[in-house]
């Protein structure tokens, strides 16, 4: 962003030439911005608020329409077609994909599905619950600490929570391989203190802890925001009224942080259910989640219609969850709230 520092303000003789150039560029820009073609457009739409709104908002919405909705709609139609020989899509209407996915019976006694997709969908939701509970247990206390602490390191400590979010997921999960693997750091460390162990990788625990670590910032930040907003005099006053620390936390802090908690829970749950990389890198084949099944059906089996049907069912479950959550917390609050 070059702001026109040259203008009437500073005496900056050393950059006189650059200033002149900028002046000329500015002149050119003015010429363009003032040209009939440009102002003519404004004249025509001045006062037509709606037109402006749809043009501006339409940029992003149009983008989503082309690159998100049209593709999603296309896989809906794809899900009613069939895979032909060699992965070719046969455009004949069929419900076979959905039948294949959904109609196998459920054994209520052991709550297992005799159907791969439903089993895995259920497993994804189960992992989602584990991860969400784990992230809440691990995330609440640091969020509380960050919200209440008065140290000058607060900004740096907050940054440390955000930083892992910038590290590519693949590296974050790779780091877990390095730590938990057969010849990993943890085995080596345990060996150092005299404990024999083989790796911890390719287990449910590895998948869940990897995901928990990856999604923890999404739990900590919203809770931190709501702790941060609490007027500390509220807690003080609870104490002066005779509440023990634990009691005042339970009576004052906890209820006031519930919006942050629910935002964090929704985010972490939704994101973990759709996870692909954690099970792919940290889990055994038995730890597969929905996203992995869709990927292998699409990429390896080249059964695009079946993969589409799986995707559509996943979307149904996702939007079902969202509409349930939406009754309690607006989605916009979940996403927009953190940044304001």
């Amino acid at each position, binding site marked *: 962003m070059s*702001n026109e*520092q040259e203008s*009437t*303000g500073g005496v900056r003789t050393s950059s006189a030439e650059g*200033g002149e150039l900028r*002046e000329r560029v500015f*002149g050119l820009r003015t010429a363009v911005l003032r040209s009939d073609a440009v102002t003519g457009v404004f004249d025509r739409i*001045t006062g037509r608020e709606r037109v402006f709104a749809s043009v501006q908002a339409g940029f992003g919405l149009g983008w989503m329409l082309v690159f998100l909705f049209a593709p999603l709609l296309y896989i809906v139609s794809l899900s009613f077609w069939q895979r032909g020989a060699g992965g070719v899509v046969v455009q004949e209407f069929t419900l076979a994909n959905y039948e294949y996915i959904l109609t196998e019976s459920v054994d209520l006694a052991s709550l297992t599905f005799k159907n791969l997709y439903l089993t895995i969908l259920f497993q994804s939701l189960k992992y989602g619950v584990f991860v969400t509970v784990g992230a809440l247990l691990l995330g609440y206390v640091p969020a509380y600490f960050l919200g209440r602490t008065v140290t000058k390191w607060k900004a740096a400590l907050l940054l440390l929570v955000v930083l892992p979010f910038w590290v590519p997921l693949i590296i974050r999960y790779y780091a877990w391989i390095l730590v938990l693997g057969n010849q990993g750091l943890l085995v080596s460390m345990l060996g150092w203190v005299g404990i024999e162990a083989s790796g911890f990788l390719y287990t449910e625990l590895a998948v869940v802890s990897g995901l928990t670590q990856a999604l923890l910032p999404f739990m900590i930040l919203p809770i931190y925001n709501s702790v941060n907003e609490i007027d500390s005099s509220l807690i003080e006053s609870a104490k002066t009224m005779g509440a023990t620390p634990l009691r005042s936390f339970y009576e004052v802090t906890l209820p006031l942080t519930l919006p942050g908690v629910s935002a964090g829970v929704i985010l972490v749950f939704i994101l973990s259910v759709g996870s692909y990389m954690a099970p792919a890198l940290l889990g055994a084949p038995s730890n597969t989640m929905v996203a992995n099944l869709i990927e292998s059906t699409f990429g390896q089996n080249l059964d695009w219609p079946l993969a589409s049907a799986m995707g559509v069912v996943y979307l149904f479950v996702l939007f079902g969850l969202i509409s349930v959550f939406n009754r309690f917390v607006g989605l916009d609050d979940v996403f927009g709230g953190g940044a304001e």
Partner: protein
Amino acid sequence: MSYVQISGVTKTFGDVRAVKDVSFEAERGEFVSLLGPSGCGKTTTLRMIAGLETPTEGTIEIGGEDVTKQPAYERDIGMVFQHYALFPHKTVGENVGFPLKMRGVDKAERRERVADALEMVRLPGTMDRSPTELSGGQQQRVALARALVFEPNVLLMDEPLSALDRVLRQQMRIELERIQEEIGITTIYVTHDQTEAFSLSDRVIVLDQGELSQQGSPLEIYENPQSEFVGEFIGQSTKLSGTVTADDDGVTLRTDSGLSLESGESNLTHDTPALAFLRAEKLSISKTPTGAANELSATVTTVSYLGEKTLFFCTLATGEEITVAEHGFTNVGEYGSGDEVFITIPEEKLLLVEDASNGEPA
């Protein structure tokens, strides 16, 4: 033909009519104030003159040209905003130079004119500073310099002093008066503050709920309010309602509570329902009857000594509350709550206004 001409302007926001059929004009070089409480439509009117809002109905002419549909940037109008609206990312010099840059004035001339403008608002040498480093009063001066540097046809000001503290406000008011006189620019000034409007303006336009209530010189507005709203909004007065009786002896207001107040001149006819506005500072108070025509007995409720004046809050024998202001009053100690006093209203100073509510019996 006047320089700025507002004709039958109405502005509707959804279902709300913010401005209703307002017409007024400003001569070249005239200082006109739009005065009224918040929500009276004065700011909306100003924004329509600036081109920041488009009137729903009516026309706005400047210098004989119809500018109703013209966007703000084509109108050549300088505007000073309530909270300065300086560009925080530009220096003071760049702020003041901005309108010149938009008009393609070259750098050297720009620099010179910016320096002159800053000189005029008594802020020389601040060019390279950031506006955020300046005090509120200084920021408003920069805003004024920015609005004047390109020698616009009209200067608009939207409550420019309201964000300043009392002392600064007074200084800036005097400064504004000086500058406006110096360059003689047609100025339209929006305020809710009577002192500002009266001290600065040639003409004051009082707006009430989007409608023009009265216009005239400060003197006319104050001494001759023509509506209940103006009577109540301007100055500090006690309102009494009654009916006019006019006979050979003159005009008398018989109040609903049974008082009889003689009035000097009035063009109200016999039997007109009317309101009297008893301006606090036009009343006098004494412990003993003076024998004057309009003398009312009352009881003091509270005495409030303010230094340059003293306010007496009293209750008339007929039950109405009345406020009396005495200037330079020193025997405050003699008055206390519960005292019986006599209040005199000079008959030539009794302000009568026709009661628009048509005097339903009280």
